């Protein structure tokens, strides 16, 4: 995958990618890690709620809702 990492929040529904980097706060990283939202894990955007709403993403761990502000800080390789 040669493309540069982008923000998860910029992806449209149906896009698949691989998580590249998580936000820095340790608490948040631990929460994401327990859900298997880890760098290197594949991720698919299932639905994007309009007007700055959350994203629904599917991973090997399950189906999760991520607020737009949080998705802004997760980097993916799409």
């Amino acid at each position, binding site marked *: 995958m040669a493309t540069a990492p982008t923000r998860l929040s910029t992806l449209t529904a149906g896009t698949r990618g691989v998580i590249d980097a*998580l936000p820095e706060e*340790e*608490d*948040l*990283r*631990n*929460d*994401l*890690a*327990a*859900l*298997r939202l*880890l*760098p*290197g894990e594949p991720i698919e955007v*299932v*639905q994007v*709620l*309009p*007007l*700055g*709403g*959350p994203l*629904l993403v599917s991973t*090997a*761990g*399950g*189906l*999760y*809702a*991520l*607020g*737009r*502000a*949080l*998705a802004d*800080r997760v980097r993916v390789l799409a």
Partner: protein
Amino acid sequence: MKVRAACHGPAVVAAPDSLPTLVLAGNPNVGKSTVFNRLTGLNALTTNYPGTTVELAVGTATIAGRTYRIIDVPGTYGLAASGEDQRAAWEALLRWRPDGVIVVVDATNLSRNLYLVLQLIDLGLPIVVALNLWDVASRGGLRIDAAHLSAALGVSVIPTVATQGRGVTKAAHDAALCAGRPVTRRHRYGARLEAAVAELAARRGDHDTAAAFQALERRGAGPAPQAVADVVSQLRADAGEDVPLYVARERHRLAERLARQVTAGDAELRGRRAWHLATRPVTGLPLLAFVLAVVFVSLVWGGSLLAAALDRAWGTYASPPIRALVAWLIGEGILARTLLWGADAGLNAVLSIGLPYVVTFYLVLAVLEDTGYLNAAAVLLDRTLGRMGLNGRAAIPLVAGAGCNVPAIVGLRVLRTDRERLIAGTLITLVPCSARTAVIFGAVARFLGWPWALALYGVTTGVILGAGWGLNRIIPGPRTGLLMEIFPFRAPSARTVVRKTWYRVREFAGVAVPIVLLGSVMLGALYETGWIRLAVRPLAPVLEGWLRLPAVAGLTLVFAVLRKELALQLLVALAAAQFGGGADNLLSFMTGRQIFTYALVNTIYIPCVATIAVLGRALGWKRAMLISGGTVTLAVTLGGLAARLLTALP
């Protein structure tokens, strides 16, 4: 005296009765609380929603002739996680050192659920696995080889269907058996991680791998000793990432491999289509409006039908004998009449004003919770709540607040920052709880019609949105993003719904009856002795002058700080005392405008003493007082404005 299990380190914080303890752990929404209810028959609530069991539910159960304490801890995905509810799970498991842990896992999502199982074994806890939702997995074509999984993990694995009680006793039995046995870890991670764990354990001198894992995942308090830090930094360099992330990755990888080995069939069981419909605004917003309409109509119809029936029954069967008994015992003097305020009017009010709406509301709420719809609503409302400095997660306590503010404020623990807790806590006190709903429906909807009740809810919603928007601007600090698992919708179980409603109503009645009796007798004494005129005099300028309410009616608003529905109950009793007969006299006592103003003030001013108390504990007393004072000011201001606006109307 029993000697505690030798297999683990730190001293046990023994409970006074020294009962052996079993803890229930698991991810949110896997049926943990249902297992708890099956075991204990106690009143922990089960909810298809993360975070409702934030207070530890404790009960006892007799297993193989011996009594055990059973603790239900908040649902958690891993022990690394942050947040107060997660910390509560951590404490229950690692500080209290239970004799056994039942890990309830979702058989339909085995891989992700096994993460917690592996972590608990790594940390040296004696566990058994309850493979729950076995029926759902089977129906979806999943077959899990429990014996194979048990052999791989070295712990007992029991298929369970908690909603039917299947397998639950067996799981508890096995958990009781594992108490005191040494914990051996059979699973192995990659060579690099295993080497680091072995090195740490060796440097400790006791070869305690559980302590090594705790050190690796940085759960120990204070700075790590040099020997530990060396190993951690070496592992970090070798792995090329933070050690906790690396450990999590290894654990997920192993969990997935194990799940694959023991599972046959397709794992795609989740009903995602319904989720799309519920969260996409085009279909989701109409659905939300429909759900709210159903709640409203249930309260208008169900509540008022129930209220009328109970009122009639009381008047026919209960009231005459009670009056006769009091007359026979102490005659018909002031004391007797005062007593009747409580024993007749007060109890009648609980039955025909409080209870019908509370029962109806909790019934509807239980159905909504059990289907998992509230979860979809949280996602849908994330953006709106974002404007108020919160995220979708705050929908949990806010909706719970419509039942009762007290548990909702306790539930604030699921929110991550102090700022979010402060904003959400303030907003919860403005959410009309079922007691205030009883006043809105029992007075406004009944005497003025449902559009007025709807208008009152509209005003309240506006106040909440405005307050949230304002607080978000005033209080500094960042907001945290939503991170929530999406659960499939489920058909509500009649058993769970009825049980949950019963527990909540029982709790309501247990608290409400004594307070209503006391309040009624107090007001009755003031009324019968004629002192009521003295009591209202200092309040008259505000009540009569500004709010344009009859001063005696205003006095019931003051009493309502004990319990909000008490306002209407006392008002009806006052009307009955003054004009005779039942609640139908409210309109002869007050005008429609006054009833609206009255209900509005009652809805917005300080919730009740119980709420203030729990607010003080959750947010601090200064803030609790500030919120209380603020809501009184707001209520009186809005009440006066409403009185003037309504007079201006034709």
